[in-house]
């Protein structure tokens, strides 16, 4: 499966697609943080990998030297189409101010506390229905049979597209993010996804609804309707960024609870711990790494970054930095002080963070209410995806 040469020196030749990095990156980050806090590689171009909280948050705030025009951790190595369907990429995530500023404002109200509270009941029903389907069997693949099924359906609801296509959407998103180092598969997934939204946009123009896609088509900026390329890019972003990420956070949290029965017991019997537990699980298992494009020569912590280099924003490693977090490598469900950056830092803070938190909380609440005790069926059969988004993809558990 691996399409990468094995890594011997993580400081000078790292590869985020190395199977060891995907399975267990924590020790690699700890070593780098202590010896070479910003690693470099020439694989897939010149890429830097900061590991310290201070460097990562400083870079995130320096949007003039570190552009978001290329946020994919794995640069696309296939042939680019002559006329891109998405001239703006996936705004606002793949944009800098000023486009970032106004395109983000189009999206944020859909993920406000008020709106997200309105999605909670359907999320709870969804989780409960999934559990109904497997609880009598005493076992389930908690990744594929539970975590993977939840965010995609909430996102489908927001976009106004059929939940019955959830597996298809999930397949496209995995092609784009998880198999990003396979240019053909990545391109095919992106094309299928965009083709679908082109058709949906045409349908919404005929029959507008109350969904995000219809609303974007109604939106005018400076007296003119949004360009279709921007509507498509924003819709594609909501799907791509709203599915793999939260599913991975739910899956990693269930992996933690399955392998740490004292924590699942504690969380099941002390539900008042849920708010700090959610933040702690997000800290310890932050799924998302984003990239930045260096706009011109700049030095960070002694590292000479050149224009055109890329920086992998290692928020998950920032969250494990012992300079900022006491017992950084330990999960403490009651950690009261937790300034984690699982959702990023600065102007690109995850626009869906309120939704992600709600989905993670409801998914764990419903699971623990029905299945307070569970364990891995077979530790060796657990598999992880990584690179842009890290989380378990096969997670067989048994209970009852």
């Amino acid at each position, binding site marked *: 499966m691996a399409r990468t040469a094995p890594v011997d020196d993580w400081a000078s030749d790292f590869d985020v697609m190395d199977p060891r990095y995907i399975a267990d990156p924590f020790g690699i980050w700890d070593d780098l943080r202590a010896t070479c806090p910003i690693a470099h590689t020439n694989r897939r171009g010149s890429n830097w990998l900061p590991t310290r909280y201070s460097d990562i*948050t400083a870079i995130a705030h320096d949007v003039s030297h570190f552009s978001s025009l290329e946020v994919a951790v794995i640069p696309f190595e296939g042939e680019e189409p002559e006329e891109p369907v998405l001239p703006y990429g996936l705004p606002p995530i793949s944009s800098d101010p000023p486009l970032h500023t106004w395109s983000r*404002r189009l999206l*944020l*109200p859909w993920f*406000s*506390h*008020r709106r997200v509270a309105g999605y909670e009941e359907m999320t709870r029903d969804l989780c409960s229905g999934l559990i109904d389907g497997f609880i009598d069997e005493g076992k389930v693949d908690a990744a594929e049979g539970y975590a993977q099924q939840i965010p995609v359906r909430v996102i489908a609801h927001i976009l106004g597209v059929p939940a019955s296509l959830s597996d298809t959407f999930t397949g496209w998103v995995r092609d784009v993010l998880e198999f990003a180092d396979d240019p053909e598969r990545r391109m095919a997934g992106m094309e299928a996804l965009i083709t679908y939204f082109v058709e949906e946009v045409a349908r919404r123009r005929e029959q507008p609804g109350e969904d995000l896609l219809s609303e974007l088509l109604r939106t005018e900026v400076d007296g003119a309707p949004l360009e279709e390329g921007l509507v498509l890019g924003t819709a594609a972003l909501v799907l791509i960024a709203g599915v793999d990420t939260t599913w991975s956070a739910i899956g990693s949290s269930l992996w933690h609870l399955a392998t740490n029965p004292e924590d699942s017991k504690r969380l099941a019997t002390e539900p008042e711990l849920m*708010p700090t537990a959610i*933040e702690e699980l997000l800290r310890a298992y932050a799924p998302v790494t984003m990239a930045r494009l260096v706009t011109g020569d700049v030095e960070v912590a002694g590292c000479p970054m050149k224009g055109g280099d890329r920086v992998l924003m290692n928020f998950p490693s920032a969250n494990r930095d012992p300079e900022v977090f006491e017992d950084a490598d330990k999960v403490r469900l009651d950690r*009261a*002080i*937790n*300034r*984690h*950056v699982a*959702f990023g*830092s*600065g*102007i690109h*803070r995850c626009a869906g*963070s*309120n939704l992600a938190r709600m989905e993670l909380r409801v998914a764990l609440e419903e699971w623990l209410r029905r299945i307070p005790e569970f364990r891995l069926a077979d530790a060796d059969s657990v598999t992880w995806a990584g690179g842009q988004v890290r989380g378990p993809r096969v997670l067989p558990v048994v209970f009852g």
Partner: protein
Amino acid sequence: MRIAIDSSKCQGHARCYALVPELISVDDYGTSSVLGDGTVPPDLEERVRLAIANCPEFAIGEVAPDGAGASPEGTASA
């Protein structure tokens, strides 16, 4: 105790709102602001200190009695 939020630093993580919804409001774009003049009732002080310690953007801080900012990292303008 009195607190203020620097809206130019707030990026909408909403950690403060989760901890002390009694004192914070969040608009549709995620920006938090302090309700009233930011005076903290004594029974909320502990949670307010947690809100200050959990903000990833260092956007919320205590206002010194003379009105100057006194958040841990620079100022929170009153």
